[in-house]
């Protein structure tokens, strides 16, 4: 046996555990979920498929299909706002905060991760309420005549999400920024670029991989989240995870819950493909 063949066998042997792990804990459960999604509920009993009835319902019944659009809209809004807030924050921490204070700044940035997700969401419910801190302050300062409703709206859901994901994005963008050599900016300035041009034409494109990684993570975590829209959205519109929970908790309709989950995974896969193909995430 030649050295090349031996190396190939060694490589296969090294990959095998990870491959088996993926097959056992992802491929097989996913295949089971797809198979269940092709069944349907007859009365209160599950009938195995295959039929595409659940998928047909998802795309033809307004109450279900709207869940896809609501999820996509909220996720895209959250991702864009989070990136817009996180990039300047990461840039300030990486370039303007003195090195000895950076660790503290990062620590403060990740503090929200230390609290329970559910507790944080209920805290936002209190803050955003008509008698909460925000409305009391705005009315007290004379900026509003009367409290406006934020709690139990899409805005509350977006605020709850953004609070969490800005921190996540800040970390991914910061890790990208600190790896950049300062010589890029110096070279651009030597060639006559203004400070703003340096950021826009040099620094920002170079941090695109970090931005895209964070944006993709934000997309995945946001579109699959149940807690925040459930607590802050007031059930005034339903996202895909909320629809999935309704099928599981109330109806015991595992086929429909599985079909909705497959649609959710398809959306995530499309998002990954877009990030990898057009937005240079593969460079990370």
């Amino acid at each position, binding site marked *: 046996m030649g050295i090349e063949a031996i190396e190939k066998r060694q490589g296969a042997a090294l990959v095998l555990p990870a491959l088996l792990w993926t097959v056992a804990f992802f491929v097989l459960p996913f295949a089971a979920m797809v198979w269940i999604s092709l069944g349907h509920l007859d009365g*209160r009993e599950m009938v195995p498929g295959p039929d595409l009835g659940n998928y047909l319902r998802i795309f033809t019944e*307004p*109450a279900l299909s*709207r869940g896809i659009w609501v999820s996509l809209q909220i996720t895209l809004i959250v991702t864009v706002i989070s990136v817009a807030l996180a990039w300047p924050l990461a840039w300030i921490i990486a370039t303007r905060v003195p090195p000895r204070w950076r660790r503290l700044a990062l620590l403060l940035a990740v503090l929200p991760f230390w609290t329970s997700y559910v507790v944080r969401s209920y805290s936002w419910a209190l803050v955003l309420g008509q*008698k909460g801190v925000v409305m009391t302050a705005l009315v007290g300062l004379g900026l509003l005549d009367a409290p406006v409703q934020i*709690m*139990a709206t899409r805005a509350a859901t977006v605020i709850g999400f953004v609070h969490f994901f800005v921190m996540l994005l800040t970390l991914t963008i910061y890790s990208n920024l600190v790896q950049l050599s300062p010589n890029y900016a110096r070279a651009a300035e030597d060639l006559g670029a203004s400070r703003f041009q340096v950021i826009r034409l040099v620094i920002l494109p170079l941090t695109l991989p970090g931005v895209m990684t964070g944006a993709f993570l934000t997309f995945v975590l946001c579109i699959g989240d149940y807690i925040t829209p459930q607590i802050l959205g007031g059930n005034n519109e339903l996202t895909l995870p909320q629809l999935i929970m309704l099928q599981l*908790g109330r*109806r015991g309709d595992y086929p429909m819950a599985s079909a909705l989950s497959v649609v959710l995974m398809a959306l995530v896969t499309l998002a990954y493909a877009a990030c990898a193909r057009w937005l240079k995430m593969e460079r990370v």
Partner: protein
Amino acid sequence: MRLTTSCAAAAVLAALAPTAQAEELNALIWCDHADPALLEPFEKAHGVKVNTKEYEGTAAGLTILEQSRPGDWDVMVIDAVDVHRAVERGLLAPLPAAEMATADYFPQVVMAANNSVDGVTYAVTEKFGYNTIAFNKAAVDPEDMKSLKTLFSGKYDGRIAVYDYYLPVEGIVGLSQGIATRDLDAAALERIKAPLFALKAASKQVSDVVASQTALATGEVDVLVGGGEWLTAVLHAENPDLDWTIPAEGGLLWAQSIAVLKDSKKPELALEFVKYITSPEGQARLATSSCYWGMPANRKAGAQLDADQKAVLRWDEQDDYLARAQLYPVPDAATDAAMQDLWTEMLQN
């Protein structure tokens, strides 16, 4: 050295002995049964440990049972109107009806038709209450709450929360249209669609128990459709203005039952637990559980409750309330699916 070894061995045995002897009872419950104040007297009296797992909604409970091994669970708390569903699946063991304390019950909540199948008793009612209208009387005129029509009048638009459970709320909306809960069929669902959507439009939120309590307690909303003593009683000490009533059109009676599971490996102990829960002491503790309050099914629990607790539970008004309340809808599978579809459509509208 030998003495030290002997002492150590004795200490290890002494430490292990209670653990080895302690029996465990596994209970699939609603959150009110997880209160240590309820479980401790039984655990001490029988030298056992009660392990609990909370669930919400009969479908979730039945799913847990079907995904467990036979014998994993000994007792189960279940919505009284869903006992037949569990019996149909062969999950419940018959109970010795003569040994149950139902003779001491409020007669309306014995609910023999719901707790028995073909004359065999499979469960006993343990607690009940009402899904009706809860409100903050400091912000709402209590007179307005005497009719469900107020909800659709526009007076309280944006100040209403709806409890996120389709069965009682669709039942209440049915009552507002003069439809009895037992008559909620496909045709009736068409009739309640418009008022249900109007109620959603007038509401600020449709929320679960905790979010509804938070909204009512913080003044985010002033009226909760579907609420009742089970939701306001635990907040009464903090805010005595939180109140509830049964309007002229009526309210819905909720009732929870307790049953022994057919595959239990400790049926005698499980039966003892059922007897304890339905005894006056167990009933009083269950009625005032830290998770939520509700009326005890056993009248004799009244002797164990103080005047304040009875006032919060509206003990003296139960005869009138029971006369005016209707049971939860008990839809067949097709109607249940239609009711849930309507609920999803309402939420997404």
